[in-house]
């Protein structure tokens, strides 16, 4: 972990938790149904998930205008990110951990897609994104067999998680572009996930760190939202 990212990470996470603690009182807690749903909902969703089946893609005419690309952020609308020193740090259960520049990610084949982003709140948007396939990026870092989850840290203090199996899906992107231009700060510049096979909270923004792990670690998942969240 580089010094800047470490500082930001150490500063952001307790801050986020403290904020979460005061912003989200008692009711934001798991219920007795959480373990039941871990079986009923997550297992069912995992069983339903096909690594090959593609999410529907749409013509440009069906895109929501960029100005109506609704934001649903965890805390900051535009957390400060120093683009000059930015690196994607990869650690944990991988053969080749390291720190990747944006150019290294951009050197991978680019996929451009119009897919539906479904928010857990119930609304949906057909949005454009482009970036490297996570599939190709995972080829660079080589997840070990015991790596089941990719836990990401984000510049706004959010932390998210997706299962490695879903990361290999051909539409799972490390996106750096939207609507034909680089990601804007409110949409996660410089790098975000776009995971069309999952609910929106899996498409983490402002990613600066990916840790491969045997255990998931996601902010909303810890509050009782579905761990797998496949749609």
């Amino acid at each position: 972990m580089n010094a800047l990212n470490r500082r930001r990470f150490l500063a952001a996470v307790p801050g986020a938790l403290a904020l979460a603690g005061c912003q989200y009182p008692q009711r934001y807690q798991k219920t007795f149904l959480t373990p039941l749903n871990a079986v009923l909902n997550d297992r069912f969703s995992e069983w339903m998930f096909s690594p090959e089946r593609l999410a529907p893609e749409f013509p440009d005419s069906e895109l929501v205008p960029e100005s109506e690309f609704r934001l649903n952020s965890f805390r900051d609308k535009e957390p400060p990110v120093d683009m000059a020193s930015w690196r994607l740090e990869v650690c944990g259960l991988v053969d080749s951990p390291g720190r990747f520049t944006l150019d290294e990610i951009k050197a991978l084949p680019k996929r451009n897609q119009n897919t539906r982003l479904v928010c857990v709140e119930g609304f949906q948007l057909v949005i454009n994104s482009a970036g490297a396939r996570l599939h190709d990026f995972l080829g660079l870092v080589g997840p070990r067999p015991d790596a089941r989850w990719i836990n990401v840290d984000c510049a706004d203090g959010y932390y998210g998680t997706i299962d490695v199996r879903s990361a290999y899906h051909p539409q799972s992107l490390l996106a750096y572009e939207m609507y034909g231009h680089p990601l804007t700060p409110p949409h996660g510049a410089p790098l975000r996930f776009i995971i069309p096979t999952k609910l929106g909270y899996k498409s983490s923004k402002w990613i600066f760190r990916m840790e491969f792990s045997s255990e998931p670690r996601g902010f909303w998942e810890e509050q009782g939202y579905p761990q797998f969240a496949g749609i």
Partner: protein
Amino acid sequence: MSLRYDHPLPIRLTHWIHVVALAIMVFSGFQIYNASPLFDFRFPRALGLGGWLAAGMQWHFAGMWLFFLNGFAYVAYWLLSGQFRTHRAKYNLAQRIAYPLIILIAVVEILSGLAIYKSVQLSWLTALFGGHDGARYWHFYGMVALILFTIGHLVMALRAGWSTIVAMVTGWRDAPTASR
């Protein structure tokens, strides 16, 4: 007056489990609806089961299995036991139309729910309902139909007399020998 055995145990059991399952689905559905309303209104907070979205979803996703499995058991019993043959003798015209219709609506409710829940894995089903938003409207109107049926059903049962409700609990109805 004589006693008549109207409802065998599997019918009574699935009927009352359905009451619980439907209540879970409707009130947790209110909770989920309120996170992103389709119309210009929200349901009163107090009617939302779970208290917030994640808990409402958990109730909904647990309740849907109860709703589905119980409904499946009911329909399977109804068909396999030959209960449907007594339908004509037991029910009036309105009931003979309403009961199969509400089962059909329940099926639409389950399918539109799946279309929302799995809009990628079952994208053909979602498309059938007119997309993710379309499926939400179907799911909402289906719920309205289920609620209206329940209200009508309750009113009719009460109007028909207390013995109707007793019969759905014990199976036996106090009925005039020459009934209806």
